[in-house]
C-alpha cells in the first residue's frame, strides 16, 4: 500500500508540474503586451513607463525563469493581479467564487447518483424487459442532450411557464438555505443529467454481472427478498466502476459548470473565466485554468487511491 501511495504521489507531482507549465506557456504566448494591458492607452505613448512596467512584471526574463518565479509565487497562493480590475488578486477572486462552483458540482453529483442508482438497478433487475428498455432509452437520450439545452428548457418550464423558480439572481447559501436551493436546483439538475445517464448505464451493467455471482444465489436460497438482495448485497460490489468514473467525469463536470454558470448568470469560477476571456484578462484566465486543472488532477488521484482502499485486489497489486 505504501508503495502504491508513493508511486501515485510521485506521478501526481510530475503531472502537476506539467499541467502548470502548460498553462503558463499557453498564457505566455498570448499576443499583445501585458504591460500595455496594465497601463492602458497612456502606456502606448509613454515608452519609459512601458519599459518600467515590463521590468516590474518580470517580462524581460527568459521563459523558464519566469515560470520558476511564477510557480514560486503560485505555491504560496499568489497568482498575480487582474489586469482589468487593478489591485484585485486572482487568488482572492478564486477564493470568493469557489464555494459557488463547488456547491453546484456537489449538488450535480448527488442528483446524478440519486437518479442513476434506482434507474440502473431497475434496468438490471428487469433486464431486457420493458422497464429496462425504458430506463436504457431514457439514459441514451439524457446522454445526448447537451447540458445547456437541458438548462434552457428547465428555465422555460419552471421559470417562464410555471414561474416556480428564478432563472437567475443567484442567492448565496449564507443568504438563506431555501433561497439558495431555489436558485441552485435547476443548474445542478441540468449539469446532472449527462452524468446520470453515464452512471446509470454503469450501475446497470455492473449489477447484471453481480447478480450472476454465487453469493446472490446463496442469498436467494436463504429466502431473502429481492429488494433486500438488490440493495444490501448487490449494490455495493456494483458501485466500483461508478467510483472510478466519478473521478474521470469530474473534469467534464467542471467544464459543464462554465456553460451552466454562464446560462444561469451564477457568480462562480466558470462565469468569471468566460468574462476574463472576453476582457482578455490574462492573469485571471491563467489563474482559473491552473486552479481548475490542479483540482481536477488532485481529485483524480484521490479517487484512484480511494478505489485502492475499497478494492483489495488493487491494493495488493
Amino acid at each position, binding site marked *: 500500500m505504501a508503495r502504491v501511495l508513493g508511486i501515485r504521489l510521485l506521478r501526481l507531482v510530475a*503531472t502537476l508540474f*506539467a*499541467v502548470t507549465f*502548460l*498553462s503558463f506557456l*499557453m*498564457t505566455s*504566448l*498570448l*499576443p499583445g503586451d501585458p504591460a500595455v494591458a496594465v497601463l492602458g492607452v497612456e502606456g502606448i505613448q509613454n515608452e519609459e513607463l512601458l519599459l518600467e512596467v515590463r521590468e516590474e512584471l518580470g517580462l524581460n526574463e527568459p521563459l523558464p525563469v519566469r515560470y520558476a518565479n511564477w510557480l514560486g509565487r503560485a505555491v504560496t497562493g499568489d497568482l498575480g493581479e487582474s489586469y482589468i480590475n487593478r489591485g484585485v488578486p486572482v487568488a482572492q477572486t478564486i477564493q470568493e467564487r469557489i464555494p459557488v462552483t463547488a456547491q453546484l458540482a456537489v449538488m450535480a453529483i448527488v442528483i446524478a447518483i440519486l437518479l442513476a442508482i434506482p434507474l440502473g438497478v431497475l434496468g438490471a433487475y428487469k433486464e431486457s424487459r420493458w422497464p429496462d428498455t425504458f430506463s436504457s432509452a431514457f439514459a*441514451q*437520450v439524457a*446522454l*445526448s*442532450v*447537451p447540458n*445547456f*439545452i437541458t438548462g*434552457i*428548457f428547465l*428555465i*422555460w418550464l419552471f421559470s*417562464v411557464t410555471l414561474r416556480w423558480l428564478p432563472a437567475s439572481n443567484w442567492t448565496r447559501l449564507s443568504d438563506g438555505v431555501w433561497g439558495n436551493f431555489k436558485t441552485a436546483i435547476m443548474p445542478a439538475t441540468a449539469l446532472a443529467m449527462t452524468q446520470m445517464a453515464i452512471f446509470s448505464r454503469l450501475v446497470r451493467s455492473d449489477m447484471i454481472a453481480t447478480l450472476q455471482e454465487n453469493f446472490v444465489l446463496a442469498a436467494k436460497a436463504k429466502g431473502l427478498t429481492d429488494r433486500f438482495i438488490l440493495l444490501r448485497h448487490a449494490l455495493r460490489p456494483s458501485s466500483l466502476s461508478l467510483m472510478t468514473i466519478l473521478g474521470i467525469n469530474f*473534469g*467534464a463536470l*467542471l*467544464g*459543464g459548470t*462554465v*456553460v451552466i454558470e*454562464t*446560462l444561469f448568470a451564477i457568480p462562480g469560477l466558470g462565469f468569471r*473565466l*468566460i468574462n*476574463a*476571456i*472576453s476582457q*482578455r484578462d490574462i492573469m485571471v*484566465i491563467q489563474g482559473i*485554468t491552473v486552479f*481548475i*486543472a490542479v483540482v*481536477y*488532477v488532485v481529485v*483524480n488521484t484521490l479517487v484512484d487511491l480511494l478505489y485502492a482502499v475499497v478494492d483489495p485486489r488493487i491494493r495488493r497489486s
Partner: protein
Amino acid sequence: MSDPTLISPLADVGVPTAAAALDAAPSRSRFAWFTDMPRLVKVSAVWLMLVVFGAIYAKLDESVFGGALPLQDPNLQTNNFDVNTGEFGTGEPLEGISFNHWLGTDAIARDTFSRLVHGAWVSLIVAGVSAAFGVIIGGFIGSLVGYIRGRLETVAMAVIDVILAFPALVLLLALVSVFEVRSLGLISFVIGVLSIPAYTRVARANSLAISNREFVLAAQAIGTRRRQILFREIIPNVLPTLLAYAMVAAAFVVVVEGSLSFLGLSVQLPQSTWGNMINQARRDIKANIAQVLWPSLALTLTVLALNQVGDYFQRRSAVRQSSL
C-alpha cells in the same frame, strides 16, 4: 422476392449457380452494411446523411452557386427595406412555421431553416476535421508506440496523460482565448489537435493487443520488416475500431463546439451555428420557445444519431476483434 439479396439472373429458374450460392452468403448485398443495421441505427444513419447532405448543399449554394440554389439567404433580414424594389420585406421577426419560412424566423427576421442548414456545415467540418486529425495522427502514433514499445511509448503516453489531465472544455477555452479572430478553420484545428490524445490511447490499446497476434508473430518469423508489419498488419486492424470510436468522439466534439458557440467563443457571427442560434434565441424564450427548439433538436438528434451509429459499429468491431 421481397428479399433483394436473392435477386440473381438464374435464381428464378431454380438453377443452382455459383453466383447464386455466393449471393446467399452472409454478406450478400453491397448495401448489407446498411440493411443489416437495427432499425434505430438505420434511422440514425439516415439522419446523419441528411445533415451531411444539408451542410454540403448549403456550402455549395453559398460559395459555388452564389445563392442561386433553392435555399434562402441565412443572413437576410426578411423585414428589411430593399433598396432595389423600394419596399419593405414581407417577413417578420419570430414568425411561426409557414410555407415561406419552414421553421419560422428568428429575432431579426432571418429564416431559421436556412440558418439551421448552414449551421450544419460548422458541425460537419469541426467533427470531420477532428476525426481526421484523430484517426490519421492519433491512429498512427498510437499504432506505432503500441507496436514498437520502448522509451518512445513511455514519453508519448506521458505527454498524452498530461494533456488529458486538463478538463477538455477548460483547456479549449484557454486555447481559444488566445485568438482574437476565430475562423472555422482555427476552431476545427484547435479541436482537432485536442482530439489526438484520446485517439492515440484507443489506437495504442488496440495495437498492443494486435501486436501479440499469431499473424504478426508469423510475419516477424518470416523476416518481414517492422515498417511493413506496422503498415500491413497493425494499422489495417486498428483502423476499424478507431473509425467506430471516431463516431462516438464526433458526438462529443459536436457538443463541445455547440457549447463553445453557445458561449460566443466559436466561429464568429454572422455565420450561424446551432450553438449560437440557441444562444440568440434564448433571449426571446418568453415570446417564442420554438426558435430555441429547432437548433436544440438538430443538435440533440445529431448527437443521439452519432452515439447510436458509433455504438453499433463499436459492438461490431469488438466482435470482429475477438474472432480475429
